[in-house]
């Protein structure tokens, strides 16, 4: 099915960064091409220059910060690098189009989605209004949006993430471009939605013969859709080749590392803990959100419906589910960051669900939480040492003792104790997450909750932080509640798994048996949706763990 016609041909492309950056060029000497009807995946971790490459093709880089200094970009054989803006604008939309990572913010919130699609036709064609409207409905149906005529009149906030991304794709496809650039288009979506969007992109590429340049950090996604793969690292191209070559024959260590960092969907063998009293348990935990209107009752959301769970010391319980499943609500109720509406939360046999803020304070240290975004969960104006000792000192530990513990913990999480004086911005994302873990451990908790704690990290870093979490769980004999949307990650670290959907626990059991023999339909759907599930990423190399 490979059409030999080359749509995009990038040769020796170099883009310079502003003067005071950590390196001279954002990307250096990048060359690859995308043929019609072909999906080329550019893979790399953050800072690899993959997005800069895509934006340079579209001419969307801020002109005073990123300047192309060498190379050429040919679109259908014509040079498009450094051509005048009006010419480039004409090509954007007509010949090449782009979709972005965040469907939540990529659409204009105050314009109806149908009009946002129609705008593309308005500026690039001389179609009449009725022709435009007809075409809008046509493309919306082409991306499988239900009830297109009425949905065209909706505003973005009335649609789900998946629907918004379909609208973005509809905008991009409105003029049948030769090249579609997709910059992490499924990263912000739920697994099941991700699977549908990937299918859609593949389907469009097949039906329209579109050349697709697909940017991603996830080798699971690559395995699902790529024809060709380009691996990038720190602005340089590591290698390129067919998907088959990358998965099975590549000898580049970086490529191998990326591939092997994809956690396998098969849980490793773990001894099940059955003895011992649960240190954390909930009984009929209920949380509803409801808006009380002026006139009558508003919409009520059941974020947690009679959730029951148990975690013993030294055990990890995984809570998996998609957005809106209530998994984070459960976590936040247990830490009492939000107040449950009913049920019991037992910490070492003591019910804390209804405790007053004052009575709760002594219990606070027993349950600690690590959040998703390490960039925002540390106070930027406070040295990490101060952030770590603040908790223990609030509980009466002396300053010297608290700092001694902080130094020990820095070593535990694999950082230098001398770094305590530094500020969060001096650390990378993975290091910050280690600091967050040290901060949580400084309170000597019985229960550690990791709320999507590795989701914002690059794959290579993700594996290390997972390992660290597992290690501290063992060493400190913690009960760990591991909240995640990622079934691959959950498989690696959890002893038992609890699957949630719309506030309800649909299935619960030992990880190995849930994965091998899912009882609930929804669990099966989730497992099937995991990208690249048929590909064995461990072939030829040893797995992460």
């Amino acid at each position, binding site marked *: 099915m490979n059409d030999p016609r080359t749509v995009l041909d990038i040769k020796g492309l170099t883009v310079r960064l502003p003067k005071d950056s950590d390196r001279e060029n954002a990307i250096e000497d990048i060359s690859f091409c995308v043929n019609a009807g072909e999906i080329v995946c550019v893979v790399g971790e953050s800072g690899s220059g993959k997005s800069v490459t895509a934006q340079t093709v*579209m001419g*969307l880089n801020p002109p005073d910060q990123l300047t192309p200094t060498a190379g050429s970009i040919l679109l259908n054989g014509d040079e498009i690098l450094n051509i005048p803006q*009006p010419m480039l*604008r*004409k*090509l*954007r*939309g*007509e010949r090449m*189009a*782009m979709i*972005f990572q*965040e469907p939540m*913010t*990529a*659409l*204009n*919130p*105050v*314009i109806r989605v149908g009009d946002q699609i129609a*705008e*593309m036709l308005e*500026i*690039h064609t001389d179609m009449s209004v009725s022709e435009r409207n007809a075409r809008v409905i046509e493309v919306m149906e082409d991306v499988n949006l239900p009830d297109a005529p009425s949905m065209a009149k909706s*505003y973005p*906030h009335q649609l789900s993430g998946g629907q918004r991304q379909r609208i*973005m794709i509809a*905008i991009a496809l409105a003029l049948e471009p030769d090249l579609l650039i997709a910059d992490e288009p499924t990263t912000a979506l739920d697994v099941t939605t991700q699977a549908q969007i990937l299918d859609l992109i593949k389907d469009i590429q097949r039906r329209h013969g579109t050349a697709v340049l697909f940017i991603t950090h996830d080798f699971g996604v690559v395995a699902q859709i790529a024809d060709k793969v380009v691996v990038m690292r720190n602005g340089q191209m590591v290698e390129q080749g067919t998907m088959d070559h990358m998965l099975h024959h590549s000898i580049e260590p970086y490529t191998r590392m990326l591939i092997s960092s994809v956690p396998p969907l098969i849980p490793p063998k773990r001894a099940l803990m059955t003895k011992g009293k649960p240190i954390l348990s909930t009984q009929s935990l209920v949380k509803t959100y409801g808006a009380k209107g*002026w006139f009558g009752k508003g919409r009520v959301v059941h974020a947690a419906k009679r959730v029951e769970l148990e975690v013993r010391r030294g055990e990890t319980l995984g809570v998996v589910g998609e957005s809106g499943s209530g998994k984070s609500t459960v976590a936040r109720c247990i830490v009492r960051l939000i107040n449950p509406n009913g049920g019991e939360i037992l910490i070492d046999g003591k019910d804390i669900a209804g405790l007053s803020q004052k009575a709760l304070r002594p219990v606070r240290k027993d349950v600690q939480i690590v959040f998703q975004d390490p960039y925002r969960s540390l106070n930027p104006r406070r040295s990490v040492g101060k952030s770590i000792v603040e908790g223990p000192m609030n509980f009466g530990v002396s300053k010297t003792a608290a700092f001694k513990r902080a130094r020990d913990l820095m070593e535990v999480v694999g950082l230098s104790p001398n770094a305590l004086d530094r500020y969060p911005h001096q650390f990378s994302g993975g290091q910050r997450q280690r600091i967050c873990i040290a901060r949580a451990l400084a309170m000597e908790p019985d229960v550690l909750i990791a709320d999507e704690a590795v989701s914002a990290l690059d794959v290579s870093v993700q594996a290390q932080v997972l390992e660290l979490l597992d290690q501290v769980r063992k060493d400190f004999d913690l009960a760990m509640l591991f909240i995640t949307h990622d079934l691959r990650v959950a498989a690696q670290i959890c002893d038992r798994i609890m699957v949630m959907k719309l506030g309800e626990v649909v299935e619960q059991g030992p990880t190995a048996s849930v994965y091998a023999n899912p009882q609930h339909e929804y669990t099966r759907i989730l497992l099937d949706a995991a990208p690249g599930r048929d590909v064995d990423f461990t072939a030829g190399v040893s797995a992460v763990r």
Partner: protein
Amino acid sequence: MLVYLIKRILAVIPVMLIVAVIVFLMLRLTPGDPAAIIAGDAATSADIDLIREKLGLERSLIEQFVLWIGNMLGGDFGESFYYKRSVTSMISDRIWPTLALATFTIVIACVVAVPLGTLAAYKQGSWLDRTVMGMSVLGFSVPVFVIGYVLIYVFAVKLDWFPVQGYQPIADGFGGFIYRLILPSSALSVIFIALIARMTRTSVLEVLNEDYIRTARAKGLSETKVMTRHALRNAAVPIVTVIGIAIAVLISGVVVTESVFVIPGLGTLTIDAIQGRDYPTVQGLIMLFSFVYVLINLVIDVIYSLLDPRIRY
């Protein structure tokens, strides 16, 4: 939308009631006989008796309040003993110059400030941006009467382009009406241009970093269309808020400008009424100004929900 509108309009009633109670008590709680206060220093005892009867002062406080409110709803704000005229007729005589001045000022301010602020944001860091922001600091710092006298000195006294002062009703010719409004409105608009331009710049700058602006560029839109269709409308809510505040502040600013340019509007009436301790007129003016403030807020809220479909209270 209709339900929302009705709800918002209904919410005006309690606010205005509270204002009415305060205005009503203002006079009753002042030490001394309200009738004597209203009548003023030069009144005879017959005058005072007349007023006492008219206000129903022998009746209970509640009854007096109901009577007063009822009169106001019927358009009767009472009698000014200082001017020997009904307050209603005085206000309706004076409202047009003020309304004309305020409207013209706010139109000038918006027409100048919104494009300036948008341009400054678009060309962030350029000489244009720095000039606009520098001028706006200046606009903030100079009081309106100073600007007024400077404009009179330059454009009326020295250049003789505009009349020094005065007002011409619209009925006597539209050209002359606008001609005489230009200087006072310009003087008054300076601070609002500064305010609105700053707000526009900040708000547009914030929006320009949004993902949907990148989407708009990726669609191949020209920069003008990116700015007008996608940036400005999303930036509009804070800008409209500031314009609303500007209109409210404007009403108090009008008082000063009217005296500088000798315009027979509500501003001059307010000053005269306060100086003459003309309680009924002051009461009527407070009620009117409060109503205008509440009305502006209502209009702004409605504009919010028109601008941004996500806003529904």
